[in-house]
């Protein structure tokens, strides 16, 4: 708990990459590009769902249940004859939409409260940071279950829940970083010419935080999608017949022997997107920790290199810095 805060803070400090350089480095990282391409392709397909899928995602057709994939139904039909392809695309709008809005919410709430705690100090800091401590002392999913259970089943409540349980990590990160920035000379200069605290926060500290925080929330997109679809799978998201990946998977449980593909399609969709977010996130994390890529440009991942003896730990430190460790 306390340790991961320090770890994030450390990562935030090393975020000093210039934009052009960072972009070039990201493009050179082929697995990250693969992740980005998947995100863009699937995201666009889901956005264009009404154009790409010819069938109504909730129109039933009892004469055509459990149909195999065909020209008219590329992924077949489900237990009440609904077109699975159309349901996957429309479901993606909800699943990905929820993940994106939850991420945006977490970022904004975490940024605001973290800034207030970091700048105003005293009472605001005590209240906010002690709340953060208590919330972080709970396993997130269990806390989320309780909150969403009390709020009641709906898409909006699901998103609110995810924001409520996830903002503390961001607030802690932002507060730590703003404490560092507050000590820097340009802030001192602003204070010397008579800028108010509010102005310093808004004009001098916030702009320096937005970059790293957005990067962190992007890295977290995969786990946010997992959380959203998990809660939805448990029945706290949409009700039938609305298509949503987690809910579709839950619905398909009943036909596991007869039509396992109904379970596979939404499952694969979630896995693919989480994988894509993780790949892209890995690339972004490397931007935060330049040690990895600079020592071996473009070769850290993806390409096979036959070399048994470990070099002086080129990529060793990366994963420890930012908390997410699959690299």
């Amino acid at each position: 708990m306390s340790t991961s805060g320090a770890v994030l803070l450390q990562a935030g400090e090393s975020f000093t990459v210039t934009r052009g350089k960072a972009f070039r480095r990201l493009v050179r990282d082929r697995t990250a590009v693969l992740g980005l391409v998947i995100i863009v392709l699937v995201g666009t397909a889901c956005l264009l769902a009404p154009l790409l899928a010819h069938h109504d995602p909730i129109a039933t057709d009892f004469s055509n249940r459990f149909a195999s994939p065909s020209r008219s139904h590329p992924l077949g039909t489900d237990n009440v004859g609904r077109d699975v392809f159309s349901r996957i695309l429309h479901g993606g709008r909800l699943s990905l939409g929820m993940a994106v809005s939850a991420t945006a919410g977490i970022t904004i709430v975490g940024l605001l409260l973290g800034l207030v705690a970091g700048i105003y100090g005293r009472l605001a800091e005590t209240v906010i940071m002690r709340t953060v401590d208590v919330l972080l002392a709970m396993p997130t999913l269990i806390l989320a279950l309780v909150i969403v259970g009390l709020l009641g089943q709906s898409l909006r409540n699901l998103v609110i829940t995810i924001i409520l349980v996830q903002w503390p990590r961001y607030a802690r990160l932002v507060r730590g970083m703003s404490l560092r920035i507050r000590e820097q000379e340009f802030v001192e200069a602003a204070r010397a010419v008579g800028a108010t605290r509010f102005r310093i926060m808004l004009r001098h500290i916030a702009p320096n935080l937005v970059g790293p925080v957005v990067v962190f929330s992007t890295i977290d997109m995969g786990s946010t999608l997992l959380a959203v679809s998990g809660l939805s799978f448990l029945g706290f998201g949409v009700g039938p017949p609305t298509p949503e990946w987690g809910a579709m998977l839950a619905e398909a449980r009943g036909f596991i022997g007869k039509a396992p593909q109904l379970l596979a399609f939404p499952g694969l969709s979630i896995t693919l997107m989480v994988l894509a977010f993780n790949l892209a996130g890995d690339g972004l994390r490397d931007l935060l920790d330049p040690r990895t890529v600079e020592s071996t440009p473009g070769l850290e991942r993806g390409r096979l290199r036959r070399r048994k003896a470990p070099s002086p730990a080129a990529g060793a430190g990366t994963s420890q810095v930012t908390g997410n460790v699959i690299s």
Partner: protein
Amino acid sequence: MARYFGRRLLVAVPTLLALSFLIFALVSSAPGDPSEELARRRTQDPKPAEIAEAKAELHLDRPFLTQYGLWLKGALTGDLGPSFAKKRPVVDEIKDRFGATVELAFAALLLVVVMAVPLGVLGAMFHRHWVDQGLRVWALLSASIPGFFFGYLLIIELATRLKLLPVAGRQGLPSLIMPAIVVAALPTAVISRLLRASLLEVFSDDYVRTARSKGLNSFQIVARHGLRNAAIPVVTYLGTVFGGLLEGVVITEIVFAWPGVGRLTVEAISQRDYPMIQAVVLMAGTIYLVVNLAVDMLYGVLDPRIRLEGRR
């Protein structure tokens, strides 16, 4: 050392208190009147006297803070009220379910240790070799696949198609295998990659070069110098991993109809069984806090720099 432990404990107690208050307040703020709910579950059409009786039993006729005090006192003495849905004390139900979850968690933990350490060492020793790349792909997949999908994939393959294992439920060792694999998947991936990264860092240290130059082979270096030093960063993440384990247990218990506390939690929430929700969440929070405390202390034991911090 004692000072370090003392300081950690001092922080943990108020956190636990605040946590219990948060849980109590959260569940108490739920809409509807629980005493009417409880009375209605006992008799079809409760009379006002019966509702009043339920109200007194749930202490809802007292002021809010007294309610909290009574609940906390009950929690310390092992009485967390009557369950709405189960028609018996909450504590009895949890006792019955606890064993199943502990069994699953330990089986998973065992799998994690048995798998993660060798895989982490392998990844480090074959750094950038195809073995390491393969392990990276495997770890990424393990981190990306949702437990509820992975679980059903196993059921489809191993239970429905090959008929090797029972589909669900808790009947002896065979039924434990699939749930344990699902719970262990993510922590194994995380720890093995962490251990790999940590080992690589250790490998570049001077004392490893010394060990190599005095003629130790790779295996001896890993066993004598590598693992012990690489363990420190790994330990910091054990708390996080354990949190993941608790969460993995919830979903997995649902998928495999495993009669544990995780499933009980989801049931209690869907049935709006308020005393049960308060109890299981308090329990999860306490366990999580204690484990994190233990991890912090272990970290202090392993790394003197941590426990001496603040003495300067």
